[in-house]
Structures are given as structure tokens and as C-alpha cells.
């Protein structure tokens, strides 16, 4: 417990506290503007953190993460435009509530739900991480490989749209990682003689291109679209005891679902909200009310998407495996600061591991304060002309990418992946699996090959090591289950048509 208190004590100094406050505030503002995502904000802030102490840099980024996911409900509720994908589910009931003149109530519920989800998942993060890091130290190449495999398959099958498109996106992401030095034999591969490809395609240009630049291309198409004006007051935002009682079970269930989905590598806030929403609906006595402005729907979605942040931080600090796309960027941030996220983070850099945990706690409290008192003003941010924003953002994209590697080649890579991301969006291919494939496949490849090296070519550990075997089995089932259920459905349909 002592290191946690030490890091909380550090956090209460004026500089880290300022950074956290600024991070949360920025996160909320950017998160609430449709078209600007948390991922974008964090990728673009990263180069600015080069000259900060590592702990301060992480504090700032965690603040943005919490603020961004929470802020995105504002536009989702008022305009039916999710500020970030995390709030897609919030539009289902938040927007109808707003239409019925209950904007304040919807936002109040959403903000409180975000806060509760954050705090519950923080408890899991703080309690589970240290022992999990110890367990993770016993994980060898086979465990890591199967865990990543599991993450890739689950992500592909759980993200929006078809399994096939998800898998194609994941494979594309994995292919992008291939050029450069072969991690197992130290030789060049697939560089086609380009010296610039010898170091492979770096994380930041690909991520900034795929997320920020592609989003800008997408927004340019309907740059003149102006959201309709909505006014928000402050009345009725605070919940009373009766409300807490009414939604208590929902709060707890959604927090746990969100945390759990967050822990699973690769899948993040949007899927957490989706699953928690359907869990709330299926356990409700009045499922037909969901989608018509039902309070429980807002609570389920907003609790879970925030809870997923805390959950997603668990694999990040214990194993160095991203729990979501934003976490993939946070890992990049740690690496840029010369920290190696993994089971030893608690031993080698406890200030970072506990710094993340405390920043997440205090970040949630700050988020609650800012959102409750400033949501009236935040709602106005929605009407900032996007043309100005986009121009500034593309400039920061170029500066940011150049600053990471001092190389203009990276800027071209960013632009190319901007186009790739845009095209993928147009053909409804999810970006999540693409990025996670790109980030996770080096881990999978290195671990599998080093495992094979150690066993001199035998794959038996896949079946004999208990954790590896479990992860492997889950991967196989998650891959086959959708195919099986499709087949079953098709068969049932056939049977029913036959009867007719």
C-alpha cells in the first residue's frame, strides 16, 4: 500500500496536479467534439511529453483518457453524435431523453455513471494489478503468444460488423508490421531494398495516420455540417438517494462488465458499453423501454465505457499488453520514455505503475467535478467550426510524427495510412483490429518464435502448459463460435422455411 500512498502524495504537488487537471479538461473538450477522438488527442500530445518526467507525462495522458471517454457522452446525448466510438450506445437512450426535454437528467445520469464505473474499476486495478504482475512474471513465451492470439481473435469477432472484415483488418495490421528486422534472426526482410524500411513502419506514424488523418479526410467530406442548437441548464443533474437505489444493481453490474471487457486485451470502451447495455436490457423487467429514452440504458453504457479504462490498464501495467487501442498508444508513450511495460514495471519503475493507478483515481474525481459544473459550457464547444480545428490538427499531426523520429519518411507513412484508414472506413472495415493487429503481432511473433527456439521446434507447450492451453482453447472457441452459431441459425431458418 505504501507505494500507492507515495504516488498519491506526489500527485498532489502542483505540477502533476495541474497536468492531470489540464489532461482531464482537454480530454473532456476533445472527447465532446464529434470527429475528434481520445485516441487522436493522446497520439498528438505524446510528442509534447518528450521533455517531461515520465510520471508527469503518463499522468497527463491518463487524464486525457478519462476525460475523453467521459466527455464523449455530451454530443452523444445532445446531438446523437457520439464524440468518440465509446459513446455509441449512449446515443440509444441519451438522445431520446434529451428530445423529451430531459437533457440535464440524461447528462447527470451519464456523468455519475461514468464516475461510478471509473471508481469501481479503479478498485479492481489497484487490488488486482500487483498480484497479477507477479503471476505474469511466470508467463513465458507460450503464455504471451496464446494470450495475444486470444486477444486478436476476440477483437475481430467482437468488433462491429462482420467477423470476416474484422479478421481481414487484423491480418492487414499484422502485415504492416512485417518489413524490417526479423526479430528472431536479426536479418532484414521485406524491405525491397528501401533503406527507410529497415526499421519497419513505426508505431506513431501508422497510428496517427490511421486514426487522426483518416478522420480528417472523413470530416472534410461534410465539413459544413452544423449540429442543431440545443440548450442545457443545470437543473436536475445531481442524483438523489432514490436514484442511486434504483440504479444500484445496474451500476455494479455494468462496472464489472466494463472492467472485465477492459481487461481482455485489445477490446475497449465501445464494446464494453455494447455488452453492458445488452446485459442491462436482458435482465430488465421492461426491456422494450430500452432505446426510447430509458435511464437504465444511459447508466449501463456510460458506467461500462468508463469502467473499461481501468480494466484496460490492468494488462498494460502488469504485462505490457494493450487492453484497448488507446492503451496501445500509452505503451508507445512508455517506450518512448524508455520504460519497458511488462511484469517488472512494479519492481523496476514502481513510480510509473503506481503513478498510473493514482492518476486514474484522481482523474475520475476531477472528471466528475468538471463535468458536473461545466457541462453547460462544454455543450457550446460542439459548435466550434470544424474547418479551423481540422487545419490545426493536421499541422500537429505532421509536427508530432516528425518529432518522434526526426525523419520525413515517417510523415509520408502517416499520410499513406491516413488514406488507408479512410478507405477502410468507407468499406466498413473496423480500424480497431487493424491497429491491434499491428501492435500485437510483433509480440505474438517474437514470443512464438522464441518459444519455438527454446523447445527446439516443438509446439507441445500449447497443450501442456495450463495457462497457454486455456488461452489457446478460448481462441479456438471464439473463432469457431460465430461460425457455428451462423450455421445453426441458417439451419434453423432452412428448417422453418421447409415447414412453411
Amino acid at each position, binding site marked *: 500500500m505504501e507505494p500507492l500512498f507515495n504516488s498519491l502524495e506526489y500527485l498532489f504537488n502542483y505540477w502533476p496536479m495541474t497536468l492531470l487537471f489540464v489532461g482531464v479538461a482537454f480530454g473532456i473538450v476533445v472527447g465532446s467534439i464529434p470527429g475528434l477522438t481520445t485516441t487522436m488527442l493522446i497520439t498528438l500530445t505524446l510528442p509534447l511529453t518528450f521533455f517531461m518526467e515520465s510520471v508527469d507525462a503518463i499522468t497527463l495522458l491518463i487524464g486525457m483518457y478519462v476525460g475523453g471517454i467521459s466527455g464523449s457522452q455530451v454530443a452523444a446525448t445532445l446531438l446523437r453524435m457520439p464524440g468518440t466510438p465509446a459513446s455509441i450506445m449512449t446515443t440509444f437512450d441519451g438522445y431520446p431523453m434529451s428530445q423529451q426535454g430531459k437533457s440535464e437528467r440524461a447528462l447527470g445520469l451519464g456523468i455519475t455513471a461514468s464516475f461510478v464505473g471509473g471508481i469501481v474499476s479503479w478498485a479492481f486495478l489497484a487490488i488486482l494489478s500487483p498480484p497479477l504482475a507477479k503471476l505474469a512474471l511466470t*508467463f513465458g513465451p507460450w503464455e504471451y503468444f496464446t494470450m495475444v492470439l486470444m486477444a486478436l481473435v476476440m477483437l475481430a469477432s467482437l468488433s462491429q460488423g462482420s467477423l470476416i472484415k474484422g479478421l481481414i483488418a487484423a491480418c492487414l495490421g499484422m502485415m504492416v508490421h512485417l518489413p524490417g528486422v526479423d526479430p528472431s*534472426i536479426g536479418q532484414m526482410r521485406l524491405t525491397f531494398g528501401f533503406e527507410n524500411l*529497415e*526499421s519497419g513502419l513505426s508505431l506513431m506514424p501508422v497510428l496517427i495516420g490511421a486514426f487522426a488523418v483518416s478522420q480528417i479526410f472523413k470530416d472534410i467530406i461534410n465539413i459544413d455540417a452544423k449540429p442543431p442548437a440545443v440548450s442545457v441548464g443545470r437543473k436536475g443533474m445531481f442524483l438523489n438517494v432514490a436514484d442511486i437505489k434504483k440504479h444500484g444493481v445496474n451500476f455494479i453490474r455494468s462496472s464489472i462488465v466494463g472492467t472485465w471487457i477492459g481487461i481482455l486485451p485489445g477490446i475497449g470502451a465501445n464494446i464494453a458499453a455494447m455488452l453492458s447495455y445488452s446485459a442491462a436490457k436482458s435482465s430488465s423487467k421492461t426491456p422494450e423501454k430500452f432505446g426510447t429514452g430509458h435511464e437504465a440504458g444511459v447508466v449501463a453504457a456510460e458506467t461500462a465505457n468508463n469502467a473499461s479504462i481501468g480494466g484496460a490498464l490492468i494488462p498494460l501495467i502488469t504485462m505490457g499488453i494493450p487492453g484497448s487501442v488507446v492503451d496501445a498508444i500509452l505503451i508507445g508513450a512508455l517506450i518512448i520514455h524508455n520504460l519497458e511495460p511488462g511484469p517488472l514495471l512494479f519492481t523496476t519503475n514502481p513510480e510509473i505503475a503506481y503513478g498510473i493507478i493514482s492518476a486514474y483515481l484522481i482523474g475520475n474525481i476531477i472528471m466528475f467535478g468538471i463535468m458536473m459544473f461545466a457541462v453547460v459550457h462544454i455543450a457550446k464547444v460542439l459548435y466550434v467550426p470544424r474547418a479551423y480545428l481540422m487545419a490545426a490538427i493536421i499541422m500537429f499531426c505532421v509536427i508530432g510524427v516528425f518529432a518522434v523520429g*526526426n525523419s520525413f519518411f515517417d510523415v509520408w507513412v502517416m499520410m499513406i495510412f491516413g488514406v488507408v484508414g479512410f478507405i477502410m472506413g468507407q468499406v466498413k472495415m473496423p480500424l480497431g483490429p487493424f491497429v491491434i493487429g499491428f501492435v500485437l503481432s510483433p509480440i505474438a511473433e517474437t514470443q512464438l518464435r522464441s518459444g519455438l*527456439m527454446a523447445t527446439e521446434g516443438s509446439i507441445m507447450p500449447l497443450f501442456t502448459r495450463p495457462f497457454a492451453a486455456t488461452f489457446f482453447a478460448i481462441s479456438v472457441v471464439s473463432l469457431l463460435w460465430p461460425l457455428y452459431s451462423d450455421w445453426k441459425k441458417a439451419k434453423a431458418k432452412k428448417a422453418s422455411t421447409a415447414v412453411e
Partner: protein
Amino acid sequence: MALIHKSTLMVAGFAAAIAFTPGVGVFSADEVKAEFPTKPIKIYVGFKPGGRTDLVARLVAKHIKEKNLLSQPMIIVNQPGAAAAKAARSVLKAKPDGHTILHWHHSMLISNAMSVNKLHPNKFTSIGYLGGGSPVWTVRTAAPFNTLKDLIDHLKANPKSLTEAVPIGTIPHLMGVQLAAAAGFKTRYVGAAGGSDRLAKLLGKHADIALFSAAGYLKMKPNGIKALVFFGPNRVKSIPDIPTARELGYDVTWANPNWWLGPKNMDKAATAKLASVLKQAIMSKELSGWFNSHALDPYWTDGPAAMKDSLKVLAKLQKVVKDNNITKKKKKKK
């Protein structure tokens, strides 16, 4: 006095500016060269900020600025990628006037010996070695080996019974190969990229042996590892009780220097000036003290001697790679 000095400098600066304007030059080319440096010197580092190469470059630049050894500041440009080959190429493309230099080490020789790229020492101008450091071989503190002899005896009795955490084709790999060849034992490998990954593999019992720089070892020792052998030419002050491989009868050394390089045919006056200030820097109390406390060896080797030594090391590495069939061609034959 100071005022006069300043104004003289300003006049000189103005004159120099005129001299550089095409067609107005009043000085001969040689006189202009004598004023090196005329603009900030860019030191390329092929790694992210924070590693040894970066840290040493920053300390040197800071020292030179504080002691006013050069009239212009030195700026660190981090250009990571392809094991520093990217930064090296940027420097090779620069004008050889001494304003763009490279701070690297012997990983260039490894890449060359492994034929990963075609960068060769003779493409550069060697400014000199500014100290260097050597690695240690470690095992878990709880391991039943207390000396290198224990470990080798065990491996000789049970070939391939222990695993080494190595990134293939890098220093840890080639050091292990050389020691194994010299002592006549065999290990298995498990891939592990960075120092932290090697430590995790070692502590998690997925590997039994791992190599760390002596400085890295000092930092990681409290986690439960012990060093059995030091690969430096001589013992170092910060780990006085770790014997060198040479003392134990194996001629396996690796003294990775901080090598300062410039593009080929770099201006002679500039090279000499850079060598003299770098030498002054490493000989200073502050820098040599920092080197000693970080298990590094502070020394200065002049450019030509450094080049000669590097070519010797390269020839040796090429032989190791060839003798042990580590390159691609052999792999395909298998």
C-alpha cells in the same frame, strides 16, 4: 574588458558573415575553416533519448557548453531506427565540414559482420573513442552456480540444459557464441529483445543466463541476479569482485566504445578540433567520475587508432559469424 571582448566578437562575426556571402568573400577558404565551428554542431544519435549512447552525448554536449570549449553549441538529434543505421546514413549524407557528426558504438560492426547492412567503418571519418563499457553474464541469485566454472562444468556435463536469453544477431548473442566456442559448451536460446525483457525471462525462469551491460547489471542486481563473468579487458571499480573472462582463461572480450564519427573525408581541422574538445571533456573530473560510477571506462583513443581497433574487431566478428554459421545463407542450407 568584457565589453570590448564582446564587441570584437560581434565585429568578427559580422566579418565572417560577409566572408560567407558569395562573391563578397575577403578571406581565403583556409582562413574560414580555421574558425570551425561556424554554426551549431549536430550530434546524431541512432537511438531514442535515454539510452547510454544518448546520455553520454548529452553529458558531453553539456560539459563542452559549460566549459565553453567550443564557440557553438552541440545539439543532439535522436533519429532511432534500424539499429542506428538510419542516423548513420543521415550523417554520411551530410557535408563533411564537422558540423554533422555521429555518436555510435560497435553495433555497426555487428550489423556488418551479420551482413544486415552495408555500413562499414571505412565509410566514415573516425574522430575517436570516448570511453566505453563492457557487459557481464548473469544468472539468478538462487541458481546453483557461483562461478563461471560451475556453470561451464554443468553445461559440459549436460549439453543444452540451460537457456540463454538473447536477441539473435546482437552483442548478447555473439558474446555467448564466442564464450561457448572458447569453453566448448552448448546452450539453447530463447529470444528476448530489450534488457528488461531479458531480466523478465531470467527472473521468470524462462531463461537461465542473460547478458547485461555492467551499468545495467548494477541497476538490476537487487531484483535477484548475480554476475559470473565480466567481458571487459580489465576489472572495473564498480564491480571489483567480478573476474574478467580473460582472467579465467577465455580470450573473449567486448569493450564497446563510445565512437565519434563523421562523414568520410571530413575537414581535417574540424576533426582535430572536435577530437581535442572531446578528449578534454572525457578527461575532466566530472565526466570521468560519472563514467566510473556507471561501470564505464573513461579513456580517449585518437581517431586513426580507434579506426584500426574497430577494423580488427570487425575481422574478429566476421570470423565468429563464419565459424559458427550464424548468417542467413547457412540457415537456408539446413
